């Protein structure tokens, strides 16, 4: 009954499995940034499509400089590029934790604010002028809940209620995937006022996290997963990015966002060390931080524009679900990038130290 077929079938399978394992390491020819072109690393999907329409194409038409989109803008990818001297990106569109790790690893170019259009810059809150990143799309970490899980008005409206075991409901919080532990919310739930939360009392925060832990059904690894679980009713309330909740809501999911006590954080324009197109990069930044242009982008993807000018071009209805709309802004507080970026012990930032502690906390209670 010996057959060669079965032997070869299995070797082919093993080969396929091997190829599948190896595929993340196979490099496709990288997009090369030449003169007259900049490469912007962003997150893909609807975000890149919207940026292409509102930012990249108009910029190309006005300046003749081509914009190529690539991504995702992961810190590990940037490290590989800078370490091997093969830098193919000029700019990143990314969040503060990633920027802080990259600054610590010396992968970014500081932003020369003298080259930024002062009139446009003045309309962007000072808190967003980070030395290595200029905030452009603002999102908040909010209480996002399934509207079918709670009687109207009975949903958690503050972090203390999310932490309250008497309020029934499956919770979900972020873990891993570049997501820092939500120590601010742990402190607020424990009675600290949001405007007095920094500098973080880390030990008190972790004690509060211990109380949250048994209430959490799923520690999710990325925001899309959280929204998916929330939309299907697998969980009732989660701590995730409000803008993503709004996107789910507008596509018909029974999801709503509570802005009270939300933590605001920016996605930023950052420049990669070794970019050979700095002039074009600054032209690009000055083009895209314009309020009117940001308003156009906000109509396509529900992230808050950083320029307050944008709200001149948005109707109250269009502004209502944006995290930086004046009403929502008043209910939330800004993530303190200085605290998270501060270098504490053995040349590591608070972000890195707390991320590692988060992993240990998760494992050792398991």
């Amino acid at each position, binding site marked *: *009954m*010996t*057959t*060669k077929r*079965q*032997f070869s*079938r*299995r*070797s082919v*399978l*093993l080969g396929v*499995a091997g190829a599948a394992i190896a595929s993340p*390491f196979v490099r496709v020819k990288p997009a090369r940034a030449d003169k007259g072109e900049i490469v912007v690393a962003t997150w893909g999907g609807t975000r890149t499509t919207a940026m292409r329409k509102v930012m990249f194409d108009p910029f190309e038409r006005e300046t003749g400089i081509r914009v190529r989109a690539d991504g995702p803008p*992961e*810190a*590990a990818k940037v*490290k590989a590029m800078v370490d091997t001297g093969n830098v193919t990106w000029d700019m990143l569109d990314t969040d503060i*934790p990633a920027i802080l*790790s*990259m600054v*610590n*690893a010396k992968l970014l170019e500081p932003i020369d604010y003298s080259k930024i259009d002062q009139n446009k810059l003045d309309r962007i809150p000072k808190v967003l002028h980070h030395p290595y990143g200029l905030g452009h799309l603002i999102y908040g970490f909010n209480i996002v809940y399934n509207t079918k899980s709670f009687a109207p008005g009975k949903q958690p409206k503050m972090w203390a209620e999310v932490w309250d075991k008497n309020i029934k409901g*499956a919770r979900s919080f972020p*873990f*891993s*995937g*570049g997501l820092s532990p939500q120590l601010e919310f742990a402190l607020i739930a424990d009675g600290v006022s949001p405007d007095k939360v920094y500098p973080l009392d880390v030990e008190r925060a972790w004690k509060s996290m211990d109380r949250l*832990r048994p209430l*959490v*059904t*799923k*520690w999710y*690894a990325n925001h899309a*997963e959280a929204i998916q*679980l929330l939309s*299907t*009713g*697998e969980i009732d309330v989660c701590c995730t990015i409000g803008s993503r909740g709004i996107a789910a809501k507008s596509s018909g999911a029974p999801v709503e966002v509570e802005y009270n006590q939300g933590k605001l954080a920016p996605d930023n324009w950052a420049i990669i060390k070794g970019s050979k197109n700095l002039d074009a990069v600054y032209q690009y930044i000055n083009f895209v931080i314009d309020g009117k242009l940001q308003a156009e982008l906000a109509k396509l993807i529900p992230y808050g524009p950083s320029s307050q000018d944008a709200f001149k071009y948005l109707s109250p209805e269009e502004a209502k679900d944006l995290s930086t709309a004046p009403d929502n802004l008043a209910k939330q507080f800004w993530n303190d990038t200085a605290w998270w970026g501060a270098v504490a012990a053995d040349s590591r930032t608070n972000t*890195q130290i707390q*991320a*590692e502690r988060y*992993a*240990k906390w*998760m*494992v*050792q*209670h*398991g």
Partner: protein
Amino acid sequence: MSEVALLLQSRSAVRAWRARPRVMIAGVLGFYALVYCLPMLVLLSWAFRGGGGVWTLANLTHLLSDETYSVVFVTTFRMAAVTTMVCTIIGYPYAYLLATAGPKARTLLAAAVMIPFWTSVLARSLAWVILLGRRGVMNDWLVSMGLIDQPIQMLFNGIGVQIGMVHVLLPFMVLPVWSILARLDVGLPMAARSLGATPLKAFLHVTLPLSMPGVTAGATLVFMLAVGFYITPALLGGPGDITIATLIDTVIRDLLDWPFGATISLTLVAIVGAIFALGATIAGGGRIAGLENHG
């Protein structure tokens, strides 16, 4: 005309290659040296060279002294062991059916193993979220049957992870065992029967021992793959189901501590290598690598 000449030339070149197996093997080895050994050496130097190029054991000491990592290693290996056991218990009878069924049934049974095998691990893991969720198909069914009052928590804990992992890895057990059983001389168990053995005895004393190399090969494959699992535990697991691959991902991508990430990865490679060596000693290494002898 020149094309014909080229073709002839290439044909003779092929013949010349065939005549020199050593050259071909050298080519393959060279390729592996380049795409496998070289990156491994880079990992080694990351793991054991500190700032200024001084050799150091600091990363390894960090790994060994921190209880977190040993907990995660134990979790990972426990999960892999359970997966291997369950895969063997389900996979062996399935492979036996495959080997003994008629052609039509065999096609159907083989398709049932192979078609999920070609589907993305991500999609299959997400499908379990729909099936096992608290408002999922399973719980709905159990509640409507009156078997339970409250939905059972089957997701985001060890049960969910084990179900998902067994589902993904089952083909790696079924296929090697099937290939051995299909090649088994049917005369042997029949001879045992004719000498008075019951069907069970014939199976236990003849078929099972002869098929053990397939089981060892399958178990080794399943175990090695399970140890490196990432997506399924992350999607279906809870905080107690963090695997070593998840931790490596955090260290490499979030903490950007590549030397330490390399140390954890190499430790995993070393342990898996030791398991492979053990499996190879028992089953014969070629069988696991898919190069078994025919005869």
